[in-house]
């Protein structure tokens, strides 16, 4: 296991499939991973990411996505080598993870390594129930993250 890895799940547990990232982190919490920090982040103020990954050897971020792909589709990005696809408009309220990553790039504060997993959602209405496809995808991402952790050592 690496010196320090941080795994960040982003989402809102009261907006349906938006909780996908949080679900992955909660699934990982039942295991014991020495040297790994598991964090839940609402995504409203993603400037906190710049501090969370500052001392980490490896960073993994998990979030829901909305691209028009079938629900449950898993996509993996490497933002160190290419920008993450961004929203077309800036929110007047929240500062998103994609904005935080690009801000970190401008300031020279990207983490040493960063993998982003996106799980395609379909239902983002108010509520605490996730779509079955998203729940299944969260289990899939959990397995892939565990494989990533083993590859870091």
């Amino acid at each position, binding site marked *: 296991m690496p010196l320090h890895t941080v795994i960040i799940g982003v989402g809102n547990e009261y907006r349906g499939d938006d909780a996908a990232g949080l679900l992955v982190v909660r699934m990982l919490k039942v295991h014991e991973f020495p040297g790994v920090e598991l964090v839940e982040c609402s995504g409203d*103020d993603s400037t906190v990411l710049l501090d969370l990954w500052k001392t980490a050897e490896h960073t993994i971020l998990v979030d829901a996505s909305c691209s028009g792909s079938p629900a449950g589709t898993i996509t993996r990005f490497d933002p160190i080598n290419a920008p993450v696809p961004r929203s077309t408009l800036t929110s007047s309220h929240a500062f998103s993870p994609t904005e935080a990553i690009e801000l970190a790039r401008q300031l020279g504060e990207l983490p040493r390594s960063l993998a982003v997993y*996106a799980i395609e959602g379909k239902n983002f209405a108010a509520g605490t129930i996730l779509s079955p496809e998203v729940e299944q995808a969260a289990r899939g991402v959990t397995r892939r993250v565990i494989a990533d952790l083993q590859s870091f050592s």
Partner: protein
Amino acid sequence: MSKDIRTIKVDYLARVEGEGALYVKIKDKTVKDVKLKIMEPPRFFEAFLRGRNFDEAPDITARICGICPVAYQMSAIHAMEDAFGVHVEGQLRALRRLLYCGEWIESHVLHVYMLHAPDFLGYPDVMRMAQDYPEIVKRGLRMKKAGNAIVKLLGGREVHPINVRVGGFYRVPSRQEIASLVEQLQWGRDAALETVYWVAQFPFPDFEQDYEFVALRHPAEYPFNEGRLVSNKGLDIPVQEYDQHFVEEHIPYSSALHSHLKERGAYLTGPLARYNLNFDRLSPLAQETAREAGPGPECRNPFKSIIVRSLEILYAFDEALRIIEHYEMPDAPAVAIHPRAATGYACTEAPRGTLYHRYRLNEEGLILDAKIVPPTSQNQKRIEQDLWGYVAQAIDLPDDQLTWQCEQAIRNYDPCISCSTHFLTLHIERE
């Protein structure tokens, strides 16, 4: 469509269709319609809270907004204490004000540096601004971190604090722990002073409005948690009378409810309102800075709200240091609570304005019903009126420039798209 009819549409939250949108109709160079739509998820939480125990309300409502969870917790806590006849005083009260200082710093700095300053300097976003002004952006991030440090120490973690409860806290810090914040906050106060002078130089459109400002007013303090609800046009009521004076109406084009004063209609809550109604309650340093660098004791231009937010950041650092200087660890982290059947009311000053909570409870302290009115939904009617006037002034601009200016104008109010979703919007090419 006739060329004399123009329609401006802004979905300024692209993440979820229809969640936040602006619609402007112009005919023959006259504004005919302005509709602002902001989703109202607190309605979901009001239903979700029914049947829950009173002590769950702070944690549940904190999830309405990731930027201002402390505000929701404080309004919930004060409303429950109002219901149970409890009044928290002394160092526990001071710790609550200190916690709120932390949230104001976090929220206002995020807005000033990351969301609003780029507009005035001609950048589409802070990432582009950071290319030319990296040290200024880093200053903002470091200031924000100071606010986070307060919330983490008192709240137990930086986001969605877990250490607050009805009656006080689960754990209170020692004098030594709290003193560890001083150096960071002293730096933050100096940085806040630089921030006021920086934003005061921005170019501001001439756009003064005749607002009815509504905010809390306290006999001795710039308001956070307590006070009467007042306005500059005659309102002066205890918060328990909120429902007698403020009305919510359903708007057909929006899922949100629009608030207005029964007697006079639209009003504005938030930093401008607090500032105009409580200037004399700011610390001497904040007042002196406002006179030297800023708008002075009065400000009616919503574009200059960035200066007022910066002055509130300065006040929050100043007040935090004052509280820490006089802090003595209380004997107990909370006072005793005895639930009873009652209705409790509270208003506290979230960064964006007055946040109202009302709870009806049974004899066991279970929530029978809840009402939550966030500041942004209270401001919607007034924001629409302002946009109407602002678009009328800028009506000769091409559509793309006018659209961009409308988005900027909305950012004056720092609207809280509470309980937003935050998924990644992806454009994937498949070969």
